[in-house]
């Protein structure tokens, strides 16, 4: 009853092209954002920020980046974590070299550096396709992680092999380290993610997004229609790596505060992000965030129910968690290969008709 678009007439091209053409959707999204910006910071706890909200924002952004490459442009990549690492290490290096630099500028520069690295590793995609490319991106994964360990300059010659975030302020508010307020970190991350997600949404419906989707659907046909594969694929690699790099920089500075090569940016993380976009839905912006929320929350919920409620030992629960995780992934693929975003869409369609069956 509430979800009807009757009577909403579009009188201009701008209204017709709006991201949320239905008023209820628009108000819903505005409501969620207002809640996230104005209400959540008042009752945020350090545990909530570090275990749920920051991981969700970071992985949501990383999943969005991978979704641009894999979901929109059809280039399967298994090197996401390494590119997050590039973002993290370049943000660390920038903060050490230029302590006065504004944190947002650090994030954006780290993203740009990652984009450059991503485009270099994207070059083979012009010649190598499909799973051959997926395995080739593993070269980036292993090579970059190796570089994080071997190139001392990157870690500022720290002996532990770790990088630790230097203290830094944003508009006079401490943002990093132990003196930072979780609400401040959360708000900065949320603002970055909101702006970047809006940018991505606009990018994928515009000229770039269309050329990516054409390449994904059939690259030979796209080429014949006048889309340059070089420009389309490399821009997808660049934009995707930019997002992943910013996510990595935020992961290091705001969430973890310290990071170490293969531990933080190993292949397991790459797979995790890949699971997020599959479960969330390939080729949707919303799906990236739904998938991230699902996979950030699931281990916490599983651990709580199995260890705290059912009284299993931690080791047993850990092993069982693997099985449950695997079963969930397979189950999702069988029941809804288009992911949570598709479920959301179905729910909306049903809601439109409700309470009438047709």
């Amino acid at each position, binding site marked *: 009853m509430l979800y009807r678009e009757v009577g909403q007439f579009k009188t201009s091209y701008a209204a017709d092209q709006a991201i949320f053409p239905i008023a209820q959707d628009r108000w819903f999204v505005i409501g969620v954002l207002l809640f996230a910006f104005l209400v959540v910071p008042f009752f945020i706890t350090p545990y909530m920020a570090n275990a749920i909200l920051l991981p969700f924002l970071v992985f949501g952004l990383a999943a969005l980046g991978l979704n641009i490459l894999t979901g929109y442009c059809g280039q399967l990549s298994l090197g996401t974590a390494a590119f997050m690492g590039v973002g993290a290490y370049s943000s660390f290096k920038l903060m050490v070299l230029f302590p006065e630099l504004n944190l947002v500028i650090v994030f954006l520069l780290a993203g740009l550096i990652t984009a450059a690295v991503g485009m270099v590793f994207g070059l*083979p995609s012009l010649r190598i396709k499909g799973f051959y490319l997926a*395995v080739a991106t593993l070269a980036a994964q292993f090579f970059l992680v190796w570089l994080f360990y071997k190139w001392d300059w990157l870690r500022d010659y720290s002996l532990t092999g770790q990088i630790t975030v230097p203290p830094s302020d944003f508009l006079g508010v401490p943002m990093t380290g132990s003196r930072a307020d979780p609400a401040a970190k959360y708000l900065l991350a949320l603002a970055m993610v909101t702006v970047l997600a809006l940018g991505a949404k606009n990018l994928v419906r515009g000229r770039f997004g269309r050329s990516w989707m054409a390449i994904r659907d059939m690259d030979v046909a796209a080429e014949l229609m006048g889309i340059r594969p070089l420009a389309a694929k490399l821009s997808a690699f660049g934009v995707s790596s930019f997002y992943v790099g910013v996510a990595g920089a935020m992961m290091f500075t705001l969430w973890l505060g310290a990071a170490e090569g293969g531990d933080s940016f190993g292949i397991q993380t790459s797979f995790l992000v890949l699971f997020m976009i599959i479960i969330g839905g390939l080729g949707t912006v919303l799906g990236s965030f739904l998938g991230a929320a699902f996979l950030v929350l699931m281990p916490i919920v599983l651990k709580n129910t199995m260890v705290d409620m059912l009284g299993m030992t931690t080791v047993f629960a850990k092993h069982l968690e693997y099985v449950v995780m695997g079963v969930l992934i397979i189950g999702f693929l069988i029941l809804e290969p288009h992911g949570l975003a598709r479920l959301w869409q179905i729910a909306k369609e049903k809601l439109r008709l409700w309470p009438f069956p047709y």
Partner: protein
Amino acid sequence: MLFFVETVISGLLAGVMYSLVALGFVLIFKASGVFNFAQGVMALFAGLTLAGFLSGTVPFTHQINPALAMPPWLAILATVGVMILLAILIERLVLRHLINQEPIILFMMTLGLAYVLEGAGDLLWGSDVKVLDLGLPSGASDWLLDNYGLYVDKLEVVAAVVAAVLVAVLAIFFQRTRIGRALRAVADDHQAALSVGISLNTIWAIVWAAAGIVALVAGIMWGAKSGIQFSLSLIALKALPVLILGGFDSVPGAIVGGLIIGVGEKVAEVYLGPFVGGAIENWFAYMLALAFLLVRPEGLFGEKIIRRV
């Protein structure tokens, strides 16, 4: 010079070990187009099961009951049985419901499968490192060491022989038997195979069972070399460059690719490693494979991908 020969030989033998894992990948990719990431974990699972049967471990409890310990031949047979059962289960519960899905979905399915098998293996048999003692020869070969001063591990020679036998058996199986012909038909064209009366479900179960048995062989060889532990599942990552170098759908490719990667890796480690700070074995194989791919995008022996509008 002698050192160089030794490096090359140990590289070749290490390459054979990679090929053993790569073979399982190729089998499944050839017959069903599934890029089976779980192959490494299957090797781990098979190894764990075998070690469990050998020592008489009671599943789920991790207690050892010596009365249940099996002699090696029986344990191997029982493990083969488990792998066949596993293949049937995978086909029934998973593959059957994923017919006609995109390759990336099937690939993700195998990632999920890897998680399930990893967890299940640990739940069933415990996650501690297990020694696999089947009485395979190991240590340096005295004859070569005495006469030529070459250090060659006997176990790796055994692995090479086993790999050769395995390839021969697989070649005969694919080329000469009824089932082998059916497998090749399915690999060529699912629909055409269905229309001449080949049951896809049976074929898939057979292929996954074959891959499971190859995984068992790989598990035995790697387990005898370095014990059965979690890191065994990571050999899948070692086999991937071999695969793309040789081509996803070529059995000879898996062997030749393995040899090239093995030699390249060892030689690079010895002669290039010291200049860049060592520990390059994690990525060198991938870079080598990438270099080959830039010249031949479908690997050395892979089937050419023809693209039409």
